[in-house]
């Protein structure tokens, strides 16, 4: 074998001529920004002309210290973590299952399913975000249904109450009962609940009872509002759900494509030898796909850490930062109003390091559990 350590003549020329295009473009487009990012993150640059303007210089790890001492950073990190978990343990298995279902011909029209399940990936995130806001808005469909239900319940109770006192027969007892039904929050709306409510009800004298009941419903029935959208942690659930929906299709295609590469003769042989579905999965399919699984995990991890537009379109990181993720956190520090580029770049580099660690863990897992490609 020729000396493998030094590239001679033709091999050398071929190597470099093939690597150079990628390498030079990469250097130009990504290397400089990466280096600049590192430099900025330890600087005290505060805006204005970067090169040739006001001088700026080394500021040490101040920005990093700020990042790590900011509870919002940990909040964003935690949310990103949820996304990573969901991506790796949700999208991948789901994509795998779908791919397997198609591969094993459990459903007809494989082409159709592949196509349709991938489409969410193509839909612009703006659409998803808007649709999302519409559905969960206090004036949206869910709210309408919930409010109608709550109102119907309250209304029938009121009607029963009025029936029990024989129609429009207003006394303090009745008023107190109504206030009890309304709940404590409503009490704050009056300076002196019982007399005021009594007065209000009496003002309906002469009008049909249904109008009074209807208006009392307007007054006291609590309006549904998607509270879970503002609770930390829980607010991430709808977001996670949408992410799952959007990206599973991509993994479906990747897994299916690689499943179809598996030599069917190997599976047949296994079957003939009496292997069960589960054994075929464990000893033939999974090992053959281990490379793809690792690649997909890496794609999923890097994608979930840098994901920005979808969540930004859906919730903007809110309300009140409960769905904020690292990229939105960085965005808020990099571009709004008074940008803090050292801080933003520190966040960015922390994100890169975290990705590194996660990807490293993934590769270690592969070495321990994965199998050979063929």
């Amino acid at each position, binding site marked *: 074998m020729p000396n493998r350590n030094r590239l001679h003549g033709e091999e050398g020329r071929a190597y470099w001529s093939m690597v150079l295009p990628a390498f030079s473009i990469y250097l130009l487009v990504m290397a400089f920004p990466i280096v600049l990012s590192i430099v900025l993150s330890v600087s005290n640059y505060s805006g204005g002309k970067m090169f040739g303007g006001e001088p700026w210089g080394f500021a040490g790890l101040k920005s990093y210290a700020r990042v790590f001492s900011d509870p919002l950073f940990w909040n964003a990190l935690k949310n990103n973590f949820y996304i990573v978990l969901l991506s790796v343990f949700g999208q991948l298995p789901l994509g795998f299952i779908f791919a397997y279902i198609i591969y094993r011909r459990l459903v007809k029209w494989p082409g159709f399913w592949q196509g349709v399940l991938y489409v969410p990936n193509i839909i612009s995130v703006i659409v998803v975000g808007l649709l999302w*806001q519409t559905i969960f808005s206090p004036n949206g469909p869910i709210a309408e249904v919930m409010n109608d239900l709550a109102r119907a319940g309250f209304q029938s109770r009121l009607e029963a109450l009025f029936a029990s006192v024989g129609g429009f027969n207003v006394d303090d007892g009745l008023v107190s009962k109504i206030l009890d039904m309304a709940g404590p929050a409503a009490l704050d709306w009056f300076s002196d609940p019982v007399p005021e*409510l009594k007065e209000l009800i009496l003002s309906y004298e002469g009008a049909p009872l249904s109008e009074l009941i209807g208006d009392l419903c307007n007054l006291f029935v609590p309006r549904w509002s998607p509270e879970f959208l503002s609770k930390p942690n829980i607010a991430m659930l709808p977001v996670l759900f949408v992410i799952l929906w959007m990206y599973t299709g991509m993994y479906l295609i990747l897994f299916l494509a690689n499943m179809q590469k598996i030599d069917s003769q190997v599976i047949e042989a296994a079957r003939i030898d009496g292997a069960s579905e589960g054994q075929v999965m464990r000893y033939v399919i999974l090992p053959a796909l281990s490379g793809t699984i690792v690649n997909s995990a890496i794609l999923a991890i890097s994608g979930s850490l840098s994901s920005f537009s979808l969540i930004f379109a859906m919730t903007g990181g809110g*309300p009140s930062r409960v769905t904020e993720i690292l990229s939105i956190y960085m965005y808020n520090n990099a571009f709004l109003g008074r940008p803090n580029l050292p801080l933003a770049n520190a966040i960015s580099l922390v994100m890169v390091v975290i990705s590194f660690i996660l990807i490293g863990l993934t590769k270690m897992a592969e070495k321990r559990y994965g199998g050979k490609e063929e």
Partner: protein
Amino acid sequence: MKRMIAAILLIAVAAVGGFAQEKVTLTVMNYQQADQAGYPEDVKIWQDFQAANPDITLNIEVLFNDPYHQKLQAYAAAGTMPDVFYVWPGARSAVIHEKKLAKDLNQLLGAAYLKDFSASATNPANQLGGYMAMLPQSFTYTSVMYVNTKLLADNGFKPPKTYADLKKMVPKLKAKGIAVAMLPNKDAWPMQSCLFSTVVGRMAGDDFLDAILAGKAKFTDKPFVAALEVIQNLYKDGILSREDVQIGYGEAAGMFASGKAAIYIDGDWRAGAYITDKASGKALISPAAQDKDFALMPFPAIPGEKNRGVVSAVAGTGWAVSASLPAGSAKEKAATRLIQYLYSNDVQAIRFNTGAYVPTRKGVKADVEPLVAKVPVFYAENPATCYVIDGVLDPAVYNVINDGLIAIGLGTKTAAQVAAETQAAFESWKASK
């Protein structure tokens, strides 16, 4: 003979060269978008300038919102600022003011020119850099109550003068399915800009905020906490609905116009949303109704307030000239002409007409619809102003206030908690300077 011909040629060339006007190209960054009221008028404004000034070529880049700010940051970092650009007087354009990337318009335009503008517009103290980096086209009141007086009258109420008046309205209006007041706060800033700033002005005052910045007072002191408690009570007493925290800024105008709320709290710029849209000919509130059934009022008297009747106001947006244009150059002269055109009576009248704002230029007349005409009257009736919070505090601090106000709206945090968080954010911001 040859020498004579050469001499004649030389003179001819010189003459031609002298008569030919020097063509100047200016780069402009305009903040505009196709769906904004006044978009077609804006397009025409720029076209008219170029038609009237053939010796000046404008390269106009038009962006809006985030892309605008991002691009401007990029230009600033590269040192290639556009020659004329749209800018905010405060923190939104902090880089421009702090790094002095814009020329001092006091010098460029001169005192004689600036005499035609209101005092608050020409006061450099109203701008972040302490000098006139730009000329505010408007001085906007950020906290106006749009009151549907007809709706109130139909339910037996007069327009509210005190907080207690507001509270009295709650049971009766709610029973009719009408919210007493509406303030859409999904985007976090409206509550702070459009109501809380006024409340802080009433309960604490500008001196208090100055003292905080000087380190002599704290957010956890009584006045600020009291202001937060007012907001807390507005939700508790049912005057504001907790639902408002889920309502987007764009949704609410339509809701108010259709009678879902008796009062709508927003800045004076919102008047433009209700007037006739020139393209479709439709208005959210008909001009006749604007005149008779609606009124603009300041927020009513709050129990315990120190400064009666102040309303939060801030210098509005305007144009700036890049500091990198060499003094006395042809480009600088061209930019000056452009600026003077943009602030001219005619152009400002067009802007006024679209309901975008009330110009700071004195004496601008335009045929505006009743609701917009009520705005300068509102200004005149409420001369005492106070700070808008996001105009004096750093984003690191006021973002915490914004989030805190949402939490108060949801009922998940108390006034004391938000005050404490704000103080903590302020202290860590100060430490990082």
